[in-house]
């Protein structure tokens, strides 16, 4: 039994255990413990993450229909598995204490929740371990349906969007299946290596077809434009810790598969050679532009949300664009940035979802228009969210800055100013909307109904604090993550990024986060000194205030949080997002019309007429040969 087998076995066990322990209090801690075990087993394979070992293969292999199925872990899988298990561990921890009690009391099945979470982790590990295209597809489908299970645990709205997700995901899966069967008929094998060997001899049309099928199929899971409509609401309505988990890692599985097929096998170089007809673009440029629009549109959609979870979920879509963009640059800097963003995004996105869930746990709402001023009541949650949004906005000293910097830098060096511009516009939107998030939740006037609430329970705070620490530490010492990235790059066949603990050193201006953060901290220190040495401020109650010469009573709103950024909204509001809705709606109504036509076909008054018709057609076709 190889370490990989042990890991998968333990992961499978984690699925089974909640089914037996059921709705008891012990389920959460037990699951957390099991995830810790998985983490430890994964760390035993740490050599993969540091690039010193050959892939760990599983002892299990199957021969079905003459097709060989096998599984293995390389550095890429290890990297994604680390994030997966980490997210699973912390989400499960988060879902152990008071949250579990509340969830159970509301009549939902804790057993099902923990089993679904563990199933997600397990299926993702299976996907990550896939050793050829067929097991990749199997893993892919397992992941899709596991996350469908997770989503459908939520409200009716979640069920509706989960339904939408299934439609998109299965259509995407069919595209992938078509692609890999095409590969099989060309190569006679599902092995990665056989595919890779066959790519140079394929003509442009075939590569285009495969590229389109795989990119569309995997893109659905990543919620690339125009297949993004399902994701935000489906994730947002999932039960809190589940949303944290899905937001952190689920849609990155699409990226993983895309890296495997488009980067590792077909190769970005081949995509660059593919011309888009009638334009000067290449296949890669096309996808890169899709990535950029995936950054821009969902990010500005996020800006319009007034539900904290939806806002975050829309951002999750946008951030995926950075990762894809970085990886498509395919040089050492860009791909490192893209890969690192996967890790970074998982950390801060989980923190943000958790902190929002903590707020919901205490206040019962995630409507940004009904919150405010909670910083005085939930300071630690505030701190977690603050760290999270700094990471999300890509500002120093958090880790989001490093990965985005790498991507920007690579774009500039590669000479794609327009793509760069698009990415920056996206970041602008991010900054605006995360400010809206933290302002409306924690800053401003405390609502009367929230006066008595307390800080989130410790079972929630611990995961948040741990993740916040990770966000900060990997921002301070990005070299910790870049070590793993480098071995992933080696495993995938990309140029390896030369780096050090503080960042990278390149000729045209490197990045040393130790220095940057230290200066920043020093600046904060100076500021704090100035602040402390100034006049002592007087502490007043938040409601002890007046305006226009009148004292304000507690029930007067003197600070409003709805209709944020009215000018900007007025500017961008009318002409985005609707178009995709329209696209989807148009497609659905086309199917509907055709479907009605077909039903009409089966409603013929006189079915014998068809018999005559088909006999005449078929006879004239077969007799025509004579």
């Amino acid at each position: 039994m190889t370490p990989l087998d042990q890991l998968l076995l333990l992961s499978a066990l984690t699925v089974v255990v909640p089914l037996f322990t059921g709705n008891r209090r012990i389920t959460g801690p037990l699951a957390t413990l099991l995830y810790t075990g998985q983490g430890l087993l994964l760390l035993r394979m740490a050599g993969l993450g540091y690039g010193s070992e050959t892939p760990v293969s599983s002892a299990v292999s199957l021969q079905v229909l003459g097709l060989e199925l096998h599984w293995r872990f390389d550095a890429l899988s290890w990297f994604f598995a680390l994030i997966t298990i980490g997210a699973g561990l912390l989400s499960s921890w988060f879902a152990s204490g008071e949250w579990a009690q509340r969830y159970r009391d509301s009549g939902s099945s804790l057993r099902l929740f923990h089993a679904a979470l563990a199933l997600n982790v397990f299926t993702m590990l299976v996907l990550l371990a896939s050793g050829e295209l067929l097991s990749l597809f199997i893993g892919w489908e397992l992941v899709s349906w596991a996350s469908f299970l997770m989503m459908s645990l939520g409200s009716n709205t979640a069920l509706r969007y989960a339904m939408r997700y299934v439609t998109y995901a299965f259509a995407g899966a069919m595209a992938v299946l078509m692609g890999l069967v095409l590969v099989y008929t060309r190569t006679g094998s599902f092995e990665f290596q056989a595919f890779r060997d066959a790519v140079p001899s394929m003509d442009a049309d075939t590569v285009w077809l495969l590229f389109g099928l795989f990119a569309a199929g995997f893109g659905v899971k990543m919620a690339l434009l125009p297949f993004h409509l399902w994701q935000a609401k489906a994730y947002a309505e999932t039960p809190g810790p589940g949303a944290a988990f899905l937001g952190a890692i689920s849609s990155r599985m699409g990226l993983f598969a895309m890296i495997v097929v488009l980067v590792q096998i077909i190769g970005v170089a081949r995509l660059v050679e593919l011309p888009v007809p009638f334009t000067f673009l290449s296949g890669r440029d096309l996808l890169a532009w899709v990535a950029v629009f995936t950054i821009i549109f969902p990010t500005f959609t996020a800006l319009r949300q007034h539900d904290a979870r939806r806002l975050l979920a829309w951002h999750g879509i946008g951030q995926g664009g950075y990762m894809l963009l970085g990886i498509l640059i395919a040089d050492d800097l860009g791909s490192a940035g893209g890969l690192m963003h996967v890790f970074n995004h998982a950390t801060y996105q989980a923190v943000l979802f958790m902190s929002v869930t903590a707020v919901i746990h205490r206040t019962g709402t995630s409507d940004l228009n009904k919150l405010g001023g909670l910083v005085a009541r939930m300071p630690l949650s505030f701190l977690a969210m603050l760290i999270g949004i700094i990471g999300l906005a890509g500002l120093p000293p958090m880790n989001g800055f490093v990965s985005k910097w790498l991507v920007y830098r690579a774009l500039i060096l590669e000479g794609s100013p327009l793509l760069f511009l698009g990415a920056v516009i996206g970041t602008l939107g991010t900054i605006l909307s995360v400010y809206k998030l933290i302002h409306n939740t924690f800053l401003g006037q405390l609502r009367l109904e929230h006066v008595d609430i307390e800080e989130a329970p410790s079972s929630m705070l611990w995961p948040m604090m741990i993740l916040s620490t990770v966000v900060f530490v990997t921002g301070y010492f990005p070299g910790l993550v870049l070590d793993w990235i480098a071995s992933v790059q080696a495993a995938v066949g990309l140029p390896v990024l030369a780096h050090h603990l503080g960042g990278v050193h390149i000729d045209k201006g490197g990045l040393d986060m130790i220095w940057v953060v230290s200066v920043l901290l020093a600046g904060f220190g100076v500021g704090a000194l100035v602040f402390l040495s100034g006049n002592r401020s007087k502490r007043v109650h938040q409601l002890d205030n007046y305006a226009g010469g009148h004292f304000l009573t507690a029930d007067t709103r003197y600070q409003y949080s709805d209709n944020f950024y009215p000018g900007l909204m007025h500017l961008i509001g009318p002409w985005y997002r609707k178009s995709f809705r329209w696209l989807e709606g148009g497609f659905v109504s086309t199917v509907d019309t055709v479907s009605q036509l077909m039903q009409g076909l089966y409603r013929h008054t006189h079915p014998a007429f068809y018999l005559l018709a088909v006999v005449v057609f078929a006879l004239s076709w077969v007799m025509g040969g004579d």
Partner: protein
Amino acid sequence: MQRFTSALFLLGLGVLIAAIFRNMDLAASTPIVGDAINAAAAQQVGAANFVTSVVLGYRGFDTLMELTILFTAATAGGLVLGKPRGDARPDPEAGLVLRAGADLFFPLLLVVGLYIILHGHLTPGGGFQGGVILAVAFFLPLLARPGTPMSHRAVSLIEGLAGASFIVIGLLAMPEGQAFLTPLLDKGQLGSLLSAGSLPLLYIAVGLKVGSELAGLLAQLAATEASD
């Protein structure tokens, strides 16, 4: 519109049928199996009427299935029509001529039917043709006196036992390692009444089965309430 399209397709069909007909090589058809049967049937089966040999011997399985179809049609018909309602208004009794005719013809038809059945292996005719005559014989009284219900018990008993006996005769050979429906008994003298082994027995079964099924079908249709 639809009739117009249908007519168009029919036109096409006509052309196609003509094409098939023109392409058919009428001379090429040689009944290889038929000739072989004509050559061998006298010894293998022993019936003077080779069609009977085929119907009950070579293709006895077909015949069994055909009986089953009749049985099925009668069962399904019964299922569809259901039990005749008690308040159904019976047809008025037929006139004197028909009644007298029915009385007169009943025994005559019975005899003719049985004769045709029993000579099925010798002359044209047999279980099917005789069975129809039996069916009409059974049905005639009903037509003449609609009030009197036909004895469904007797009919269903006959149809069950007749069908079963066909199968049982077929099965009898099996304990000796022979195949299903292997002809039994002595072949006898070709052309005599007691020849062709078990074939006459089978034809009696067929005749009774066909007769009872068809009579049942007729009775069902006749007993259904008129809908005017």
